[in-house]
């Protein structure tokens, strides 16, 4: 079978409003809300859903099957995903193949978390066995210190200053002012950035994602099940990677650097053609690394890349990204995907990129000891302009 994604389309992508303070209720409540909004956008009836996938850190002890029961759906394809920032693209890949192979025809994928302070602490201290064994005793308080050191090495290698990373946070915040769903929407100046409290040198408050409660959902279906006038999104290519370097590298490059040439070839597209770009931005340094790995820094290096993001020559993280919109746990990887779907469906309101047709989305995550073990990307094409 050729490695194409024909006969499958994305019919919807939604976000439950992100909140800094968790509302009353449970993680399941937030995921159920996302399920309903996505289904409504897709136009499908809830009895038509025959595939269902979930990614969440805090749903336990429930799983996808428990959510299916609570939602009153009886799928014949089900998936629980535990790959954090790479979960959305992983679920997307599996769901697309299930639809292509006839195992399901309408699949809803949901991701998200409800966090209070204790939940978040438990999550970061017990993220995996390596973290619990060697990082928790250092009271490092989560991944900030690790990415502080990664940023330091990146800055040294590419001769960047604190302001250079700040320019990414500032550019994304400017997008966030146009997104009513972002938790932080006021303009950020370079002075604000440079005077912000340090979190883990060289990272300040505006380099670290605000933890939020929220959820995202997408709906995939066989194209013949989607009304022709409904704006939908096709998959051009997917490039997934897990444990690509066995953590023997320095984390300053992801597997996307190796995988992206083949992905662009399969997508029959190039970085220059991308109208919308969503890269996984748990920290500005990771946004820069993924942009470079995907081929957006080939003319003029990282310095020119930052300028192009600032000038909106590249439309990067148009929701404001996780840095301004918030990081809702396992929804983190789906946030950028939903933003790209929203843009390609021409539903992005004030921040809509005119005529957006092509997008690239990357996911990254599952920090092991020093940096993430997963990196994935997908190229998408919308039909809204037709």
């Amino acid at each position, binding site marked *: 079978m050729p490695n194409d994604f024909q006969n499958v389309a994305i019919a919807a992508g939604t976000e439950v409003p992100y909140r800094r303070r968790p509302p009353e209720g449970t993680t399941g409540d937030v995921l159920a809300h996302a399920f309903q909004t996505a289904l409504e956008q897709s136009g499908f009836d809830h009895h038509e859903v025959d595939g269902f996938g979930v990614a969440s850190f805090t749903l336990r002890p429930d799983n996808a099957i428990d959510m299916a029961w609570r939602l009153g759906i009886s799928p014949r394809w089900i998936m629980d995903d535990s790959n954090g920032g790479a979960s959305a693209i992983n679920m997307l890949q599996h769901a697309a193949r299930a639809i292509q192979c006839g195992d399901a025809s309408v699949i809803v994928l949901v991701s998200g978390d409800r966090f209070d302070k204790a939940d978040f602490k438990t999550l970061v201290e017990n993220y995996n066995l*390596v973290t619990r*064994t*060697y*990082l928790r*005793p*250092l*009271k*490092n*308080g989560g991944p*900030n*210190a*690790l990415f*502080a*050191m*990664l940023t*330091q*090495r990146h800055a*040294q290698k590419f001769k960047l200053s604190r302001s250079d990373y700040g320019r990414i946070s500032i550019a994304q915040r400017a997008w966030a002012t146009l997104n009513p769903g972002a938790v932080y929407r006021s303009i950020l100046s370079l002075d604000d950035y440079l005077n912000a*409290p*340090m*979190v*883990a*040198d*060289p*990272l300040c408050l505006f380099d670290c994602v605000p933890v939020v409660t929220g959820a995202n959902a997408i709906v995939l279906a066989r194209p013949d099940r989607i009304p022709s006038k409904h704006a939908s999104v096709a998959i051009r290519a997917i490039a997934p990677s897990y444990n690509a370097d*066995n953590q*023997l590298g320095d984390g300053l490059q992801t597997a996307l650097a190796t995988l992206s040439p083949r992905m662009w070839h399969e997508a029959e597209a190039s970085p220059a053609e991308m109208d919308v770009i969503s890269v996984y931005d748990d920290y500005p340094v990771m946004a820069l690394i993924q942009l470079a790995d995907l081929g957006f820094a080939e003319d003029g290096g990282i310095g020119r890349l930052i300028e192009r993001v600032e000038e909106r020559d590249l439309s990067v993280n148009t929701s404001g990204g996780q840095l301004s919109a918030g990081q809702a746990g396992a929804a983190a990887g789906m946030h950028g995907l939903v933003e790209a779907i929203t843009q390609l469906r021409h539903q992005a309101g004030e921040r809509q990129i005119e005529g957006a047709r092509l997008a690239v989305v990357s996911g990254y995550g599952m920090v092991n*000891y*020093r940096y993430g073990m997963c990196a994935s990307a997908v190229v998408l094409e919308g039909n809204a302009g037709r």
Partner: protein
Amino acid sequence: MNRLFISCCSKCGLKLFPSRYLCPRCGNDSWFEEPAEWGTVSAMTVERDLKGTFGDRMLASIETQAGPTVIAQLEAGCDIGQKVELAIDTDQRILARIPSRI
């Protein structure tokens, strides 16, 4: 306070920390331990205690003399490239100490 050890593949010699089941290079499953008694600071950060409960914590990435990089609590600020002594306590906390100049 104990000596810190890293894993060394008994077949191909690849050195790793933390340890794995199988060697990613040759697939072998037997290992011997090699002490990592010192290393050099390759990156460092101060994890700020914004709420004022634990106090600031100094953490460093240390490239061990054995090869692998470990994350350690650093006893005092220093420059990148500083040589440090390594140990691990009973809580599995890796500690980096700047050698006293005699």
